[in-house]
C-alpha cells in the first residue's frame, strides 16, 4: 500500500519536473522571440546615430546580429547555459549577470522577503483570529481594514508614506538604499542606515501584500471549521486555542502555499512599483530604467530571471502540497 503510493508520488513528481522544464524552455524561447520580433531593431538601439558604416558593420558582426535567426537562437541557448547573458548597453558594457546580481538582486530580495514574511505572519494570525470571532465587531473591523489595504494602489501608499513620514514628519529618508556621501563607521552603522531606508518600502509592500493573505486565510479557516475533524477535536475536549492554531491554521495553510506561488509575478510587480517610488536600487528600478533606455540585454536578463523564479515557485508549491497534504494521492 505505502510503496504503491510512494511510487505514484514519484511518478507525479517526475511528470511535474518534465512539465516545468518544458514551460521553462517555452519561456526561454519566448524571451528570445519577443526581443527579436519587436519593431525596434536592437542593432539600431545598440549603435545609435553617427557611427561610420565600417564601424557599424564591425559592431554588428561582433555581436553576431547579422547571422540567421536560427543560428542566433542556438548561440543564445549555448550562452545562456554558460551563464552568459550578454552585456548591458547602458551600464558601460557591464555583463548583465553582474548588473542583475551584483547588488540589485540582494536589495530586492531583502525587501521582498521581509515584506512577504511580515505580511504572511500578520495576515495569517489576524485571519485566524477574525475567523474565530466570526461576525463580531473584531471580524468586521479587521475585514474592512484589510479590504481597504487590498484596494490601495501600491505606488500611492508609497507616495503617502513618503509625504507624511518622509516629508512632513521627517521620520524616514526620502530615497535610496543608504545615505549618499556618508561614510559608515562600521558594519552595524551600515546595517542601521540600510534598515532605516528600508522601513518605508517595507511598510508599503507589507500593506499591499497583506490584504490578500488575510482574506484567503480567513475564508479557508471558516471553511475548515465546517470539517469533521474540527468537530472531533472539539469532542475530544481540546482547548479552543489548540484547535485554532494547531488544527485549523495548519490545514488552512495549504491554499496559502499555492496562492503565494501563483501570485508571484504580481507580488514582484508590486515590489517594482515600490522600488520606483522609493528609488530603492533593485530589479524594479533597473527594469524601469532599462525600458526607458531600450537596454535589451538587461531587459532580457531580468525577464528571464523573474520568469524562472515564477516557474520554480510554482513547481515548489506543487511538491510542497504533496508533502503537506497526506490526503492527496496521485
Amino acid at each position: 500500500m505505502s510503496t504503491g503510493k510512494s511510487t505514484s508520488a514519484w511518478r507525479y513528481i517526475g511528470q511535474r519536473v518534465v512539465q516545468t522544464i518544458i514551460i521553462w524552455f517555452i519561456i526561454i524561447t519566448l524571451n528570445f522571440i519577443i526581443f527579436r520580433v519587436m519593431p525596434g531593431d536592437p542593432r539600431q538601439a545598440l549603435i545609435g546615430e553617427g557611427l561610420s558604416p565600417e564601424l557599424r558593420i564591425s559592431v554588428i558582426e561582433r555581436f553576431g546580429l547579422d547571422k540567421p535567426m536560427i543560428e542566433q537562437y542556438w548561440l543564445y541557448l549555448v550562452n545562456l547555459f554558460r551563464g552568459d547573458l550578454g552585456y548591458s548597453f547602458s551600464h558601460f558594457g557591464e555583463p548583465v549577470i553582474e548588473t542583475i546580481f551584483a547588488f540589485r538582486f540582494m536589495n530586492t530580495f531583502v525587501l521582498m522577503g521581509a515584506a512577504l514574511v511580515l505580511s504572511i505572519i500578520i495576515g495569517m494570525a489576524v485571519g485566524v483570529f477574525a475567523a474565530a470571532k466570526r461576525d463580531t465587531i473584531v471580524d468586521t473591523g479587521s475585514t474592512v481594514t484589510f479590504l481597504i489595504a487590498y484596494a490601495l494602489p501600491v505606488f500611492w501608499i508609497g507616495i503617502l508614506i513618503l509625504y507624511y513620514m518622509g516629508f512632513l514628519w521627517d521620520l524616514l529618508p526620502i530615497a535610496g538604499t543608504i545615505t549618499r556621501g556618508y561614510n559608515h563607521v562600521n558594519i552595524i552603522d551600515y546595517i542601521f542606515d540600510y534598515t532605516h531606508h528600508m522601513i518605508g518600502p517595507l511598510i508599503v509592500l507589507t500593506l499591499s501584500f497583506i490584504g490578500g493573505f488575510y482574506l484567503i486565510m480567513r475564508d479557508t479557516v471558516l471553511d475548515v471549521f465546517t470539517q469533521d475533524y474540527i468537530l472531533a477535536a472539539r469532542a475530544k475536549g481540546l482547548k479552543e486555542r489548540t484547535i485554532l492554531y494547531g488544527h485549523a491554521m495548519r490545514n488552512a495553510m495549504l491554499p496559502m502555499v499555492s496562492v503565494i506561488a501563483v501570485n508571484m509575478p504580481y507580488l514582484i510587480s508590486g515590489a517594482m512599483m515600490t522600488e520606483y517610488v522609493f528609488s530603492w536600487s533593485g530589479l524594479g528600478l533597473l527594469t524601469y530604467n532599462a525600458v526607458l533606455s531600450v537596454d535589451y540585454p538587461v531587459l532580457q536578463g531580468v525577464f528571464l530571471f523573474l520568469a524562472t523564479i515564477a516557474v520554480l515557485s510554482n513547481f515548489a508549491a506543487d511538491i510542497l502540497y504533496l508533502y503537506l497534504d497526506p490526503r492527496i494521492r496521485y
Partner: protein
Amino acid sequence: MNENIIDRKDSIEMIPEKKPIHLRIVSIGAFILLTLVLLVVMDMLIVALAENLAISHAGIGGLVTDDPVSTYVLAIRASAIVCLAISIWFGLLGERMYLHRPGRILQKLLTIMVCALAFVMLGIGVGLLLTFGIFFWNPKQFVDWKIRNLKIYRFGFVGIILAIMLSEMVFGQPFLTLTLSSILTPAGAWAVSLFPGFLVIPLYLFLPKVIRDIWNMRPSVENFWKEFVYHPMGMLGLAIIGSIVFVAVFAPYIAPYYWENPPGAPINLDELLQPPSAEHILGTNHRGQDIFSRIIYGSQISLMIGFVASVVAVFLGTTVGLIAGYYGGILDVILMRITDVFLCLPTLPLMLIFLMLFGQGLQNVIIVIAILGWTGTARMVRSEALSLREQPLTEAAHALGASDGYILIHHILPNTLPLILANMILGVVTAILSEAGIAFLGFVDIHGQPSWGIVLHWAWKNAALLANKWWWFIPPGVLIMLTTLGFVFISHTADKVVNPRLRGRRS
C-alpha cells in the same frame, strides 16, 4: 354553497405574496443595463474588428488608404445594423429557430469563420481549416476514425505548423501570416479584405437570444438582491460605484472646465501651479489646467479601461477554460500549458515593454492588461467545466442528441456564470490598479485625456510631494482607492450571498 366558500378561501391563499417594488425595479434595471452594455460592446467590437482588418490590409498597394477605411467601416456598420434589424425580427417572430437549434447555427457560423480565416492569414488559416474545419463540420466523423489515424492527423498538423515556423525563421519569409490579398490583384485584394469584416456580423444573429436569456434571469437576480440588501458593506460598495459611474457619465456637466485648455490659448503665468481657490477647487497644474476637472474627466478613462479590459480578459479565459475543460485530451493539455506559461510571465516588465513597442494608445493598454489577466479565469472555469462534464445532465443532453456546442452554451456556461461574474468584478479591480500603475510610470499616452494614474504621474514628475501640494496627489489616489474598494466590497458580499457556507448567522 359550502364548496364555493372553501374554493374562494383556497384561491385567496394561493395568491402569491406581493413582491416589494424594489425587487422589480432592480431586476428590470439590471436587465436594461446589461442589454445596453451588450449592445454598446457589440458595436465597439464590430467597428474595432472592421477597422483593424481594414488597416492590416491597407498596406497592400496603397489601395485602402484613409478615406476608404472609413467608408469600409461605415459599410460594415450599416450591414451590421441591417443584420440587427433582421435578427430582432427573427427573435420576435421566428422564436423556434432560436429555441431549438442555436448550437447548430453556432457550429455553422464557426465553420464559416474558420474558413474565412484563410482569407486573412493564409498559412494559419489553411492549418486551422484542416483541423477545425472537419471537426466543426461534423464531429461525428471522428467516431469513424481509428485512434491511429487521429494521431497521425493531429501530429501531422502540429508538424506542419512547426515546419512552417521553422522555415519562416530560416528563410525570413512570413508564410504563416501571409495574406491572401497580398498575392491577388489590387481589386481582388480589396474585395477579399472586405470579406472578413462581414464575418463579425452574424454575431448579431445571437443578440435576441442572449437578450431573452438575460430577461429570463430576472428571478435569480431578484433572489440575489433579496439577500444582498441585508449586507451594508455590499450596499456601500454599490453606492460608491454608482456615484463614480454617475460622475464619469455626466463629467461634462460636473466639471467646471475641460480637461485641457483650448489649444493655442495663451499661457498665463499667473494661472500655473495655483493652490486651491474658489475658481479652481483643487488648484491648477503645471500647464494651468484645472486639476479638479482633470480628475472628473479621468474617471471616464479609468473606469472604461477597468471594465473593458476585465470583460476581454474574462471572455478569453472563459473560452479557453470551457474548451479545455469540456473537450479534454490533447486540447486540454496544450491550452493548460499555454496558461501555465502565461502565469509565469513577469507582468509589469512585459506591460512596459509591450507599451513601449506597440504604442501607448488606449487600445494597447486594454490589450496588454487583458492578455496578462485571463489565466486565473481560465483555470477556474476549466475545473468547473471538468466537473460539470461528468454530471448526469451532460450525459442526458448527449442522449437527447444535443451537440457539444449546444451543451457548452446551454448547460455548462450558465452553471459557470456566477464564477465568471465574480472573476469579472475582481478583474475590474486588477485592471484599474494595473492601469493606474503603468500610467503613473508614464507608459501610457500621458498627453491625452488623463486617467487618475496620469494625474498622479504629472504630480510626481512636478515634485508636488516636495512642494507640499497635497491637493494634486491625494484626491486622485483616494478616487482610485474608492473605486477599487467599491468593487472589492461588492465582490466580497456577493461571495457571501452566493456561497451560503460563508454567509454566517444573520440575526
